[in-house]
């Protein structure tokens, strides 16, 4: 028996290694230096993210497959890693704004955040089902813990438990699906199993069942209707920065895996994906928007709005084309900037850990008391509702045009009407910011430098990508679907 040593290319994993080193360092640092404060830890984490970003930038654009085909770095993976790093960076920065929580170990908090980021990066850069599952569990478990990190609050613990139970349930679906696929095809590589299958009825039935179960597991993570029930409760109970991270990064990871699953299963097996995706897209957009309208709590409103945005992303996925995938990636980037930005302003509103002040009424007259934060929030709301000249509009334009290109005009009509409906609840917040006088004179804590930086970055990106989208689209141009 000969043993060939697999070639190990460390460039491909350098971003992951940088993050891993930082995460472990962050975990150990408070053990040795008890005085290491939040600012220092955050500084270390930001440095780690930046190093990882630089490493990512140095990876050549040609697809790399390392570690005996366990790891794959194609343009799709590199692009989504960029979005994930952006999400983590913004989340870190807005985490600094919260009143320091004496029960919170910031070393653990930041390293958990980085571990979940590592998990998401692994998930998005592999064809191998086992690696996929490992990555998925890594980020999920980190997120379950993050959701409950404010351990003295009942709603936080409730959020964590809910997320854990439903997440474990979803993982079960996922694992079952993987088992079926492996059983039917004899391989763990997602890109190969569909091509090698024999077309007899029983194998095909196994593949169908496997693909559907896998899809359901991912739909849980991406919060698609009807698998969205956990979202509002978990977002509401978690600390605001954690909700921000979950709403953007988890969505990005799940959608990339969906793209990989769909792209390859579409080529090989005749499964009515377009019809299924259309139904899910319409449901997800509409249910998300309709439920968001009635919310009194801004955080819950953003939770439902994030569901509806998953629906818009599905519209791009329905197109099943290179331009559709690029549009999904573009939207993930702009959504990351504007949504974390919005959550950042929310975290600014909280005066203490006990009182987060997340009802609409708290925002009355904010535009005249903290003009910069209010301006940012207004811009993010306009961008989320898809109004030019902000990036949310260009994002939707790309998604919808990819669908129109394939002839799904009716779907796009439903999608744009949904955007109009969403204006109603986004504008309710803007109304409170600028058009109503404050109910009470309440002094806001001064915004911390981290939050200011995060808001500034998010605002800049939202405006720049809206006015001159080529800045971003040029980076995504390499993403393409294998031709059937």
């Amino acid at each position, binding site marked *: 028996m000969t043993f060939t040593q697999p070639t190990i290319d460390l460039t491909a994993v350098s971003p992951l290694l940088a993050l891993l080193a930082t995460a472990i360092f962050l975990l150990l640092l408070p053990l040795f230096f008890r005085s290491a404060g939040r600012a220092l830890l955050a500084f270390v984490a930001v440095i780690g993210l930046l190093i990882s970003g630089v490493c990512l930038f140095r990876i050549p654009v040609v697809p790399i497959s390392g570690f005996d085909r366990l790891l794959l770095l194609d343009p799709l993976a590199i692009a989504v890693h960029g979005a994930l790093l952006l999400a983590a960076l913004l989340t870190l920065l807005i985490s600094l704004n919260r009143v320091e929580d004496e029960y919170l170990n910031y070393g653990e908090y930041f390293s958990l955040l980085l571990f979940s980021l590592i998990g998401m990066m692994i998930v998005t850069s592999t064809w191998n089902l086992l690696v996929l599952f490992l990555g998925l569990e890594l980020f999920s478990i980190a997120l379950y813990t993050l959701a409950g990190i404010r351990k003295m609050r009942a709603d936080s613990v409730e959020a964590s438990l809910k997320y854990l139970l439903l997440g474990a349930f979803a993982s079960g679906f996922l694992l079952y699906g993987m088992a079926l696929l492996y059983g039917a095809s004899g391989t763990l590589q997602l890109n190969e199993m569909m091509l090698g299958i024999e077309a007899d009825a029983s194998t095909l039935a196994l593949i169908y069942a496997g693909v559907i179960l896998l899809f359901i597991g991912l739909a849980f993570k991406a919060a698609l209707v009807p698998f969205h029930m956990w979202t509002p409760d978990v977002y509401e109970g978690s600390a605001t920065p954690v909700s921000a991270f979950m709403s953007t990064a988890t969505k990005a990871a799940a959608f990339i895996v969906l793209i990989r699953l769909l792209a390859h299963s579409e080529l090989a097996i005749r499964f009515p994906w377009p019809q299924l995706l259309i139904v899910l897209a319409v449901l997800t957009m509409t249910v998300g928007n309709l439920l968001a309208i009635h919310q009194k709590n801004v955080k819950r409103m953003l939770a439902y709005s994030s569901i509806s945005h998953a629906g818009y992303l599905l519209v791009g996925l329905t197109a099943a084309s290179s331009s559709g995938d690029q549009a999904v990636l573009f939207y993930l980037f702009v959504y990351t900037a504007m949504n974390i930005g919005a959550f950042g302003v929310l975290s600014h509103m909280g005066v203490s850990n006990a009182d987060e002040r997340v009802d609409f009424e708290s925002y009355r007259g904010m535009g*005249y008391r903290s003009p910069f934060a209010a301006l940012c929030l207004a811009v993010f709301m*306009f961008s989320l509702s898809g*109004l*030019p*000249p902000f990036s949310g*509009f260009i994002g939707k*334009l790309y998604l*919808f*045009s990819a669908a*129109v*290109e394939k002839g799904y*005009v009716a779907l*796009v*009509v439903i999608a*744009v*009407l949904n*955007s*109009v409906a969403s*204006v*109603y609840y986004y*504008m309710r917040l803007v*109304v409170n910011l*600028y*058009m*109503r006088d404050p109910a009470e004179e309440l002094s806001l804590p001064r915004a911390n430098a981290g939050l200011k930086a995060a808001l500034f970055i998010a605002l800049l990106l939202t405006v720049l990508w809206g006015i*001159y*989208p*080529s800045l971003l*689209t*040029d980076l995504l*141009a390499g993403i393409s679907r294998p031709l059937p």
Partner: protein
Amino acid sequence: MTDFFFSHLLSLLIVVPLLGAAGLFIVPRERIAALRLFTLAATTLNFILSLPLFIHFDNHSGDFQFIEQYDWIPSIGASFHLGVDGISLLMVMLTTLLMPLVILSSWTSIVHRVKEYMIVFLLLETAMIGVFVSLDLLLFYVFWEAMLIPMYFIIGVWGGERRLYAAIKFFLFTMFGGVLMLVGILVLYFMHSQTAGVATFSYSTLNQMIIGRQAQLWLFLAFGLAFAIKVPMVPFHTWLPDAHVEAPTGGSVILAGVLLKMGTYGFLRFCLPLFPHAAARLAPLIGLAAVIGILYGALVSWVQPDLKKLVAYSSVSHLGFVMLGLFSFNVQAQQGAVIQMVNHGLSTGALFLLVGMIYERRHTRQIADFGGLASVMPAFSTLFLIVTLSSIGLPGLNGFIGEFLILLGAFQAKPYLAVPATLGVVLSAVYMLTMYQRVHFGKRTHEENNHLADLTLREKLVLLPLLLFCFWIGLFPGTLLHKTEASVQKILTTMEVKQTTLLDRTERISPAQPAYVVNEE
């Protein structure tokens, strides 16, 4: 140097208000006088900059002039492509003229949040000019929707009692139409890229395409709904009275003066030349809606107890004339329609300003609260009379030219619609003169009206330019008519050529279909 100036004039007009808005950010909010003067200077500068545009415009060409084109999103074929023809020229001039007057008119009426007020007005000007000079469909759409945001703030922050309701209603109505237009734009874009192989949002290129009948109808509806809501055509007009009544004076002037014109401009620029077959098919229906609008607007105006509401509903009536003119498909009527768009901007703008001035003094707009003002405020009443007459369409003033040309053209095209429309002229005299009489003549029944101050110099300065143009257009309509003639003629020719090509193809089945013809059933 001059070459450089003229080849960047349009983008300059867009950028100057934007820079002005950026400049205002630096001015401290306590320096109210500085904020006002700065904004006035910026808008006046923009008006002065737009004058060479008017003077150097070549009347004999119906093509776009002062063209500029830069890459914007090359990957999808969208570019920053600007240009004006005779029609958009007048709209740009109207915008740049109204803006400084609006700023001047808000000198005393806006005292809270002055900084924000000035910023949103400057942003609004950028968007409005952008709408009129864009030659790229995507760019046009961006400006079209972007305009919503400042207008939403103007109504919602500085508006009256029910401003929140009016603002959100305005927003939802307009955006509802807008997004369907976006779908239309995308369909048109892919139709072109899939048949001609070139992906572009360029208006001139897309305008060369001949579209099949069924597709034309759908696209016309997608675009037309957005424009019809903006005009507003009956039955999509319900947002208008709310928005007008609640908006501050400056907002109402811009809303009536410029924003409503975008609807009719859109019909003329996009719906007619791009989808001529659908336009011809729907013309009777739209003409009917226009006439209903004329009569309905006039009748509702007649019974309004509120001055501002009366003016708002009179807009529905006047814009009905414009629509009737546009859908008569001949040069007279369409030229009349363009002139009427300008007229309405001038006279309705002036009316809203006058109503604003009296509201500032009396804090009421109820007609019943006035009476006998002519003897207390002679200057106010005189100017009010001139504007009223201009709005009615008295010969010698601007309103007459527009309405006369529209009716002249409409009689040739659709006499059965022109006859009831003429009734609208009579009705407008009835409601406007009744209103004038009740406000300015008769006995003064209210104590408060006895000591009203007449117009100040500033207020006269606001109104004077508008009246000047009312007389000018009324006496020398040629100045404007020459500007628009070639452009209107060009649109009509485009429509005709496309119609014949489409008919030709259905009559004889030619083996070699031109590549540009798509989606023929």
